[in-house]
């Protein structure tokens, strides 16, 4: 396969040439990037705030394609699972749609009584010049709830810029509720999206350690919790790609320190919990944490060892959104006796790629913002047994006759925490060991495949 000239510096083979990988660029036109848009970035971050209204101001597509797309669960209200749109038509585009937006907001707020509303303006809204900010202000005043503009036209940058816009919306909620009852040993969980209930798993660990959780942002999120998140003592950031901006802003504005963690894999989960316990400098908390880690590890290890016996020496490829997850996955796979031969991300930055280069084995291909053509040729070349990615990657893996594990926001299996490691091992084992692979490919048949 011919790699597009503009993309050559975005691919690196460990052990080959020195020099750093090029990243953080807009996708090349005509390259079938696996990335999405600014709107997508803002939508995925805010999506799990379950008692807020999420209204997409634009034509129907963006709203339809994001309707209940992710497995972000809520322990209470489920307003986030609805898809609301102003569904702009030709007349709206010609004459502007401020009135439509206004009426939509009023009617939806009256009907669903949300605690806040997020208004996402997508591609053409910026162009037609609707004054979304003032409509939001007006409705906020009339209905007495926060109505937050999320100005995220798809073309105005990358998915990462969308994260930032979402963080700013969250930041404007913070600081607006009373924090008197919050204890000193308290944290916000940032950047866990409660996919398949993962926030609940993490929250439970902290509770057992004696740490008070003020807000979970945004998994199983509630507007009122977010409004008082400035009362927490520490921010614990999991998805660094999406939430570092918020953590930094909270530090600047409210002087709350933050640490970056990951809850994927045994080592990383344990490290995360120890880091938090150490931060509070409380010996009894540290002792409780040790006990928790011991218990949880003991509970899952026998099963994991069983899987590892089968998986020893198998090879994995990883293509995920953010780099922090990629680090954890490389380590988690090692726990299973597996190696990583391809690792790529949609949005890594130079330091991320440097770190990836350090932890990967020689020969590993490292790639930024890949497309299906490149992914396929690397997967074949590296002779992987399993591909870890998102739904778009799943179709590729299966077509190539490879095992697959969904580690994206649309997965339905909890993969965070100790129990998540058990689920991960189970899933990797189930896909690699399935007997069906012996039927693909069928070399002795008459060609049923594709033209060359």
């Amino acid at each position, binding site marked *: 396969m011919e790699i597009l000239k503009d993309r050559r510096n975005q691919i690196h083979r460990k052990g080959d040439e020195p020099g750093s990988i090029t990243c953080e660029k807009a996708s090349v036109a005509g390259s079938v990037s696996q990335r999405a848009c600014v709107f*997508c970035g803002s939508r995925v971050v805010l999506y799990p705030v379950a008692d807020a209204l999420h209204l997409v101001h634009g034509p129907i597509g963006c709203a339809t394609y994001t309707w209940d797309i992710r497995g972000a669960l809520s322990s209470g209200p489920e307003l986030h699972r*609805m898809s609301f749109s102003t569904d702009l038509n030709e007349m709206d585009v010609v004459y502007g749609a401020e009135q439509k937006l206004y009426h939509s907001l009023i*009617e939806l707020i009256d009907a669903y009584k949300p605690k806040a509303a997020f208004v996402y303006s997508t591609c053409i809204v910026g*162009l037609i010049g609707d004054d979304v900010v003032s409509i939001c202000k007006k409705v906020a005043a009339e209905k007495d709830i926060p109505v937050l503009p999320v100005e995220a036209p798809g073309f*105005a940058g990358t998915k990462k810029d969308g994260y930032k816009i979402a963080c700013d919306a969250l930041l404007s909620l913070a600081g607006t509720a009373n924090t008197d009852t919050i204890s000193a040993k308290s944290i916000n969980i940032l950047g866990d999206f409660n996919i398949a209930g993962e926030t609940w798993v993490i929250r439970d660990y902290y509770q057992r350690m004696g740490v008070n959780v003020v807000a979970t942002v945004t998994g199983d999120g509630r507007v009122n919790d977010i409004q008082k998140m400035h009362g927490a003592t520490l921010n614990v950031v999991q998805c660094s790609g999406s939430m570092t901006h918020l953590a930094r802003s909270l530090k600047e504005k409210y002087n709350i320190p933050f640490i970056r963690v990951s809850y994927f894999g045994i080592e990383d989960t344990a490290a995360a919990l120890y880091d938090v316990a150490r931060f509070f400098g409380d010996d009894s908390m540290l002792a409780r944490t040790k006990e928790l880690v011991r218990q949880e590890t003991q509970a899952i290890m026998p099963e994991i060892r069983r899987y590892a016996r089968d998986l020893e020496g198998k090879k994995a490829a990883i293509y995920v959104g953010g780099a922090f997850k990629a680090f954890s996955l490389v380590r988690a796979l090692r726990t299973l006796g597996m190696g990583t031969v391809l690792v790529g991300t949609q949005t890594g930055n130079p330091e991320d790629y440097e770190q990836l280069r350090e932890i990967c084995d020689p020969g590993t291909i490292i790639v930024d913002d890949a497309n299906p053509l490149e992914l396929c040729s690397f997967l*074949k070349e590296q002779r992987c047994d399993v591909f870890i990615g998102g*739904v778009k990657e799943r*179709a590729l893996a299966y077509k190539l006759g490879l095992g697959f594990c969904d580690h994206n926001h649309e997965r339905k299996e909890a993969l965070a925490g100790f129990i998540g490691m058990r689920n991960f091992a189970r899933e990797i084992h189930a896909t690699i060991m399935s007997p069906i692979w012996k039927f693909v*490919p069928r070399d002795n048949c008459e060609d049923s495949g*594709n033209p060359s």
Partner: protein
Amino acid sequence: MKLLTKLTPTATQNACKACAPLGACLAFRGIEAAIPLIHGSQGCATYIRRYLIGHFREPVDVASSSFSEGSAIFGGKDNLFKALSNVISQYNPQFIGVASSCLTETIGDDLERLVPEFESQLTGDFHPALVPVATPSYAGTHDSGFHSAVHSIIDRLAIEPYPGFGRAVNIMPGILSPADIRYLKEILEDFGLVYTMLPDYSDTLDAPAASTYEPIPRGGTPISSIASMGRAAATLVLSSTLSKQMDGGALLETRFGVPEIIVGAPIGIGKTDVLFNILSDLSGRKIPPKYVAERGRLIDSYVDAHKYLFGKKAVIYGEEGLVIGLTSFLAEIGVFPVVCASGGKGNGFQAAIRNSIPAGIDQPTILEGADFSEITAAATTSGADFLVGNSGGYGTSQRLGIPLIRVGFPVLDRTGGQRILHVGYRGAQHLFDQIVNELLRKLQDDSPVGYGHF
């Protein structure tokens, strides 16, 4: 989730449609050695890919011209040209379908002008056919985008200048499943007919496992066949609600004198009989025994299970053509369609539904431009026993506690969406068994004692 009621017609709540560029991409995937390109921001292409992949469970490459802020201000020509060159060098396609988006339509990028300009700059002996289509996401639905793309393909590529003779027929299936298209091809072949199926994604979006991954899967309508569509004896259009700008059959008729026969979706015995009679006329052959037997078995099963169905009430929703076909099928087996809804509107949908309901059955509530808040509200008051439609009705079925028979597009929460058979006797058989069995399952589940036999 609380129960939805439609308030004023301002906000759309859980849409029963997707946008036009998606439909265009779907149609483009049915051309041989083709790749679709969306002229717009990166997101649309990725979301649309994700949506199509979710249903077809196949890799679906859709390129994007990856708009940035600058292109939105200064125009997207450079991005478009670069995208086209990159797609050509990476995929070496024979066909590129270029769909516009809300963004490029709004800034006034004119594909009708830009695409030929790019073409004129290409050097070398071979270059792919380029077909632009205007699919502003703020007009119409994925269904109208699909048909507009088919219309554009014909407009650009059907070039044979002389009128019809011979037995070749054109057939335009509309949005059906790959299994439907495969079955239709089998039928046409069994009649000995030479045909052009446009589009034909029966292989490209339901490809066999293979030892190598090819980004451009085998199959699709050959461009040479499209070129000669103007010579066909007739064009069969399996959609009955197309406006003039979307009706490729009408275009072939005005331009080349190929008669257009609007068949509608051949779902159920009545409508399938119509199709078979037409094919028999066109081919000059009797209906092959295989299909006579299929039809006979279908009737036999109708008899076996008619009592479980008579008077049951159904809610049907989806693309206009599919809803019309399903309505007549359900009415034919004694089910009362009580709500017939589509996210699209216009073009005789209401009238077609009314005509599909035989005398003696109450007219259903017909919803056009509907979303799931309206469909749910209407379903709730209708006393419906089951729903027939795509995955979008999952929430409604859950809330009302009635079964959802998944048909059409998209089916995102089950496997096998690409293999659902809707059309012809075999399709009716499949739908019939599924509906009856779902109703029996519900009887069993709801019963305190359960039944081992029915």
